[in-house]
């Protein structure tokens, strides 16, 4: 649940502060302020966790005796 909760937190933040997501005014802003905004970073971290960490953890929890090398 940690990953989806993090993604949800990022979406809630983006809705609460929509001026942070400035794709509509991309030409007027630096590339950093368009791409590197808090809500987008939080969503990206959540997605990274869901894709990279969560599946292996769930698998190891369900099959604790499984050989990691297998």
């Amino acid at each position: 649940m940690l990953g989806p909760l993090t993604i949800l937190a990022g979406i809630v933040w983006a809705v609460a502060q929509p001026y942070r997501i400035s794709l509509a005014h991309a030409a007027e802003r630096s590339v950093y302020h368009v791409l590197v905004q808090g809500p987008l970073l939080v969503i990206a971290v959540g997605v990274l966790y869901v894709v990279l960490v969560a599946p292996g953890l769930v698998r190891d929890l369900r099959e604790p005796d499984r050989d990691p090398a297998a």
Partner: protein
Amino acid sequence: MIPPPEVAHWLAGAVALFVGLLLLSEVIVGDDIFRKRVWRASLWPSLALAGGTLLWVVTAFSTFSTIHLLAHALWAEAAMIAGAVQLALARGKLTSPRWSLVAAAALFFSGVAFLVHESNPWLYSRSAFLHHVIGWTLVVAALFPLGRALQPRRAVWSAGFALTFVVLAVLLFADRDVAPIFGRFGEGGPP
């Protein structure tokens, strides 16, 4: 093209949030399951080590102020040392829980560096306020790895250590280069 300080702080916040999620999942599933795969156990120490290396780059660009340069150098060194020790623990090269004292010292001295290098009072600006809050948060949070070194089986120390990174991420995400302490930056945000 050097990113503005607030952008660098948000990126650091993202790394801190990811480390916090990793540490929280270790607390939830337990050490045995989490450390079953070496890459997973090595992930956050490696991030700390890589983050410390990147902080040296930030240090190199912090020449506008000696105290900023020294503070970033201390954070870089603390992250690298703590990351290296945790990496050795994850790979089984070190085994004693007392090595958590290194993480405690890293948090404590990082917090002190935040407090010392902020010359303005708490309510001067958003940045000054956050420096004070982050500094005291890290100083107090040093108790968690200290507790883990003394009582390694108590989950409360590990949970506190994990949540420290989540709180640190929230504080780093709240940073703006120029802003009132609370409230919105302004209509339409910064240029």
